């Protein structure tokens, strides 16, 4: 038997390989998210100062909404027989959650990186302090990935999953969305975003601890 970290790494690699082959996130979800960012200013036809003000909020809302699709994709790939296979191979439930969350984080960070220049160009929202993005983007990606993975484990392979995942993720993501939006707005205005980064770090830690504590009961309940 191998250790928890090694198991989680193997599961994350498997998830990413699966995604590379199916291309659902990068070739289906990301283009649709970019189109959503493009359509909003066209639809509301607002002026540049307003676009600048709403840009960061819309960017994170789009990341959140399409992040839910990443969580849904994960739960579809975690159906009965494959779930049993992982269990019978001795994968610790905590490692399964951690591996899935790590893979989802990589995909969400890629989504954020692809969408950020789109938002900056369409909403004319110049950013000061680019270095902060190196902390902000991974923290938001990791938090949304952990939340999505946890919620997708809670709903399991049930028929009501597609309705339950967004209903559960959206309210729980409010602190993440708030911190991310305020941080990006702070960067636009040249203010310190340390408080918001600390909030995101706290949310990440809380989700990680919750994941470890509930992993076994969640797997067995599924």
């Amino acid at each position: 038997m191998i250790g928890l970290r090694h198991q989680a790494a193997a599961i994350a690699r498997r998830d990413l390989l699966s995604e590379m082959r199916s291309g659902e996130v990068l070739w289906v979800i990301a283009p649709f998210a970019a189109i959503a960012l493009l359509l909003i200013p066209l639809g509301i036809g607002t002026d540049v100062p307003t676009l600048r003000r709403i840009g960061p909020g819309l960017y994170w809302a789009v990341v959140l909404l399409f992040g839910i699709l990443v969580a849904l994709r994960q739960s579809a790939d975690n159906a009965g027989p494959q779930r049993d296979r992982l269990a019978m191979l001795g994968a610790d439930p905590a490692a399964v959650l951690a591996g899935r969350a790590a893979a989802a984080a990589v995909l969400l960070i890629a989504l954020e990186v692809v969408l950020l220049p789109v938002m900056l160009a369409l909403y004319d929202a110049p950013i000061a302090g680019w270095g902060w993005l190196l902390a902000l983007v991974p923290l938001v990606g990791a938090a949304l990935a952990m939340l999505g993975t946890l919620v997708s484990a809670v709903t399991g392979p049930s028929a009501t999953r597609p309705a339950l995942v967004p209903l559960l993720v959206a309210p729980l993501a409010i602190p993440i969305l708030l911190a991310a939006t305020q941080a990006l707005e702070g960067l636009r205005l040249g203010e310190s975003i340390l408080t918001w980064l600390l909030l995101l770090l706290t949310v990440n830690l809380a989700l990680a601890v919750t994941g470890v504590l509930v992993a076994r009961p969640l797997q067995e309940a599924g």
Partner: protein
Amino acid sequence: MSAPVVSLRALGVDLGRTPVLRDLDLEVAPGEAVGISGANGSGKTTLLRVAATLLTPTTGTAEVLGVDVTSDARFDVRPTIGFIGHTPSLFPHLTLAENTSFAAELLGATISDVSSALAQVGLSAASSRRADHCSFGMQRRAEFATLLLAPPRLLLFDEAQAGLDSGAVELVDHLLKDVVARGGGAIVVSHQRAHGGLPLDRTLELDNGNLEVAA
């Protein structure tokens, strides 16, 4: 006398509100292979899932390889149980070799074990083919390869021979004989009473949620 490989006492399992198994007793001794037949919906798969520690009893007790299936120790015993369900469990977007390598990594086996296992089940040439591009029989053979990476102490087959060619049926035969020779145990469930001539020590019939000696 050695402890039984599987011991189910007064076992009852409800799925939702439906009672599937009722007051069932079963003991599988070391070195014994047991066949269980029954009609569709008689609870064969449910029984096998309890033995695989994937399902906990509603009433009664279940011990597998000396471990209570409701205890945390079930997580440790699972890699020593070879469970082949009636639906292939490979990850569809991965190749047969990648699926087997992933299993090897979790089980602590080596890459050379993977090549050897795939060769033994006759999949060397098809190892780079994606699982969702393979036939049912090929996916089954790849699952058998996983059993060769870390030989189990308990083998559980759900409809072992369904959809398999004669070569694959020989593999099932070989796997059963091997686990029995090593002092392990096996349970094979099927809707066919004859179990296709597999080397079984006794056969039972599941009827109305309980076991009877097969006629």
